[in-house]
């Protein structure tokens, strides 16, 4: 979706917020927001991409008006409600009516944390009979598309001429994974664009920008 998150090429944000000797977290609630997001994600009710889409779906004024971990928290709240894990009232009050339920079967236990984090969640999937459509060095065109759902093709790189510079493997397809299809996968490519192709004659000289693009984002030239 054309959300507030898709900021590549915007020019109105001012200087970088650089901070000497920056701490990992700036408030204790940020620690808890990060950990809650990972622990709730481990329950398996949504994919990484559905989580990203929840952040992207925040109204632009909320997105830009929120700190990083506030965006995470708002998205987590919406995911928990959408998946009927907590009601808005329960989240607001911390109160849960009725007897304490048994732990969720996939509750992340303290003793499992190290293993779960060390394993991660690889995104590559067997390609089966599928062969990549594009070759290294081939010129391609990114599609012009404006899907209402999740996509990882940034606006600045749509409808642009680029070149295949890497074959990354056969990876889960976020445009579908964000919306319930957990198995869909496509070939993934590194695609390089010259600065002038993206930004016109005023581009910084010598600039190239590379994105990772799934096969259906691309057309042959």
């Amino acid at each position, binding site marked *: 979706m054309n959300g507030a998150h898709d900021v*590549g090429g915007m020019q109105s944000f001012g200087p970088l917020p650089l901070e000497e000797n920056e701490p990992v977290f700036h408030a204790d609630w940020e620690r*808890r927001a990060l950990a809650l997001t990972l622990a709730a994600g481990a329950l398996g009710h949504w994919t990484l991409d559905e989580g990203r889409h929840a952040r992207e779906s925040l109204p632009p004024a909320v997105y830009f008006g929120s700190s990083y971990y506030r965006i995470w928290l708002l998205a987590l709240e919406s995911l928990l409600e959408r998946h009927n894990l907590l009601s808005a009232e329960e989240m607001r009050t911390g109160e849960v009516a009725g007897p304490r339920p048994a732990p969720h079967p996939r509750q992340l236990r303290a003793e499992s944390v190290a293993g779960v984090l060390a394993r991660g969640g690889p995104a590559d999937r067997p390609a089966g009979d599928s062969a990549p459509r594009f070759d290294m060095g081939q010129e391609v065109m990114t599609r012009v598309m404006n899907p209402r759902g999740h996509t990882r093709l940034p606006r600045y790189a749509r409808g642009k001429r680029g070149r295949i510079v890497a074959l990354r493997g056969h990876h889960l397809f976020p445009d579908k994974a964000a919306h319930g299809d957990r198995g869909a996968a496509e070939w993934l490519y590194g695609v390089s664009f010259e600065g002038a192709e993206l930004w016109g004659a005023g581009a910084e000289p010598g600039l190239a920008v590379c994105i990772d693009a799934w096969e259906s984002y691309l057309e042959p030239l």
Partner: protein
Amino acid sequence: MPHDHASDPDNTLDPMTARVMALETALERKGLVDPAALDRIIETYEHRIGPRNGAQVVARAWSDPEFADWLRRDATAAVASLGYTGRQGEHIVAVFNEPGLHNLVVCTLCSCYPWSLLGLPPTWYKSPAYRARAVIEPRAVLAEFGVDLPDGTRVVVWDSTSEVRYLVVPERPTGTDGLDADALAALVTRDSMVGTGFASKPQAAGAEG
């Protein structure tokens, strides 16, 4: 902005603290999270995983051509051989700086970053300003870090749009012949592995430009 609430424990909780506490309480009462697991997650990313991991990878690449070659061909396997695996590091690509070529990493759409090698990203990396500007004016961005590249240098910006995470291998500083792996790793800054800095010069070579 930094906040410090440790000094005013008697005051009413600020709204974000109260909101997160209520959420955690509800999640725990529903059997959805184990508070001890939350503590372990925080401990991992605040104290165990950080840019020293990536620095070990770079130092090895500087001193071991076979490892450097492996890192170019299959960085995921090469870094796994040093024990660096896991969340937000499942698929690693290493990009090498060299004279005339400078690599810079960004995630314009969110904040993808190689956690397993560098830890959690700093605020500037997650900021709209960096995400917006890195792809359109990387030299202006680099200037804010005090990085000035010679004219004619090719600047390649890697926008992390998939689950591939990028590690920049900075150029090895001059005056580092004979340094062991630990001494080399000490020169590898976090920013140099994102492409917003250079590796540090060794103290003894302070006279060099």
